[in-house]
Each structure stands twice: as C-alpha cells, then as structure tokens.
C-alpha cells in the first residue's frame, strides 16, 4: 500500500500559510521518484531557481546582479573562433530530445530552440516564448564580442538574465561545447538560413 501510505505521511505545512519554495521542494522529493537519467538531485533548487521562484521571476536588482555574476563564472569559453557548422546547428535547434526520463543517457540532446524561437525563415512552426532570432547575425555581425555573447547566452542564459525561461544548456549537461559552437554558427554564419 505504498501509495496510500504516502498520503498519510504528509509533509507538515504550517496551517493556513502558503507553502514556501522549500516546502514545495520537500513535497516533490517525497512524491517524485527517479526514472531513467532523471535523478532526485534535479529537484534540489539552487540559488537561482530559489530566487526566481520566490520572486515569481522578478528578483531585486541586487540579487540579480550578484547571482548573475556567479553564473557568469560557470562559463568557460573555448579558445579561438566560436562559429561552428550551422547545418549541424540547425539540426540541434530542431531537436526537442534529450534529458527526459525516457531519453537514453549519453545520447546527444537537442536544444529545443524552435520550441520557443523563430530562427530560419524556412521553419514556420516555431514557438514565441523567446524573441525572434531571424536575421540575428546580419544585425549583430560576427565579431569576437558577439561570438562570445551568443556562446555564453546558450551556455548559461541565467548569467545574463537571471530569471529567463531559457535553460542553462552548459551547466545542465544538455549540450556540449561543440554543439553550442554549431548553434553559434546557425545564428551568426552569413551562410546560415537564419541570415538569409
């Protein structure tokens, strides 16, 4: 009677008060179970998730500044040119696979980019949660600064905007540095469909 027994084992919440982020974390720890590559460690909120939960994605300027600085340190930029193969980048942007409990661990993941962003004008089935990136390289150029900005943003978007809905593709282990370079290529390469 595991499931019914669980119900009796209520996490003690103070009566009448709204559950805090820490309370919810305890409830989730109790009610979710590991499956496939999705382990229980994924439920431990880090400082960023906690600050964004508690402020409903509107952290104070000081909190944002200090946590963003910490996130910035997570990014290690590869040496040299960061513009990879835009064709591979397009495939990564299209794929919504990876990191779920039924994706095989170790298999290359996608970036789910089109779920939220407009990129290549050829792909009209794009989401609108994030801004349109159509023509991004044409507007921003391909300079060293832009390359680093794009690489950094994909690697860890929370270093730039603390409570963005965009995942931290580097620290979460979703994308490899090479995959991120290929996405930089998709955004910046003048030959990429994004810039046509």
């Amino acid at each position: 009677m595991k499931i019914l027994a669980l119900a009796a084992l209520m996490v003690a919440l103070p009566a009448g008060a709204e559950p805090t982020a820490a309370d919810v974390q305890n409830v989730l720890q109790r009610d979710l179970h590991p499956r496939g590559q999705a382990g229980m460690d994924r439920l431990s909120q880090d400082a960023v998730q906690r600050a964004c939960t508690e402020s409903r994605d509107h952290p104070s300027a000081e909190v944002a500044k200090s946590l963003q600085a910490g996130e910035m340190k997570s990014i290690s930029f590869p040496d040299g040119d960061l513009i990879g193969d835009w064709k591979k980048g397009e495939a990564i942007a299209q794929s919504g696979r990876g990191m779920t409990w039924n994706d095989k661990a170790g298999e290359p993941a996608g970036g789910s980019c089109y779920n939220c962003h407009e990129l290549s004008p050829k792909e009209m089935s794009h989401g609108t949660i994030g801004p349109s990136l159509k023509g991004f390289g044409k507007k921003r150029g391909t300079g060293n600064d832009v390359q680093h900005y794009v690489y950094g943003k994909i690697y860890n978007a929370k270093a730039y905007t603390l409570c963005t809905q965009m995942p931290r593709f580097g620290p979460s282990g979703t994308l490899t540095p090479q995959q991120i370079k290929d996405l930089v290529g998709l955004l910046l390469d003048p030959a990429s469909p994004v810039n046509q």
Partner: protein
Amino acid sequence: MNSIRRALVAVFVLGLVRPLAALAAWNKEAFSAKSAGDALKNLGIANAQPSKDLTVEIPEIAENGAVVPIEISSTIPGTTALIVVIDKNPFPLITRFDFKEGALPFVKLNAKVGETSDVRVLAEAAGKYYVTTREVKVTIGGCGG
C-alpha cells in the same frame, strides 16, 4: 496483376458481368495507385466536371494531419457514388461510397492527410462525374520532444 484478372476487371467495368459481390469488392488497383491520376483511371473516371452542387466542408488548416474531417453532400440529381482523393498522400484514393435506394448522397469522415494537399471530392451521377477541389494545410504543434 495477371492478365486474366485484368480481363475480369475489364469485364466488371464494362458491366457485362455483375455478380452481387462486385460492388462490395475492394478495388485493389485503384487503392494501390500512387498518384491521383492513376487512382481515378483505375476507377474508370475521366472528364470530371466542376460542380457547385457538390458541397465539401473541410477545414482550411488542420492542426493535426492524423485527423482531418471531411463532410460531403451532393444535390446533383441521381448521385450514386462519392469518392475522396487526397493528391499528396502516398496512396491518394481514400474512399468510395456507393449509395443505393434509401440513402442520401452524404457522408462525413475523418482522413489522414500527410502534408498540405489538394483534396478532390468526386460524385458519380447518371454515368457522369463531377468534382470539387479544396486545399487543406497541415501544421504541427507541441513540444516536439
């Protein structure tokens, strides 16, 4: 298809032999055709005329190609059959409905549409064929994961 069978089919088409089962049989040649033209040829249909009296209700945009509703009704006098062909499907012929005394030439069904395509609906009346063509666009939604 061997020649004997081809001959038999020809005989049926000519109406020289009409066993009871003929109408109910499944037209393998027409359903196996890979183009709309071949499918119609196998059904013995040529020179279908556009007709306003053949009404087709179909959404212009389908959120999911797995289920695309099509509603057809004909006010062409003496309509005895309705046929649906989806041009871009791998096997374009979808269905043929034969109506006898007691039934009205009306049908509503759901079809799979593989990609944005013309949908041709044909009616047979007194040995003549009529057609109405509509385009349906297929999109996709969801997380794609």
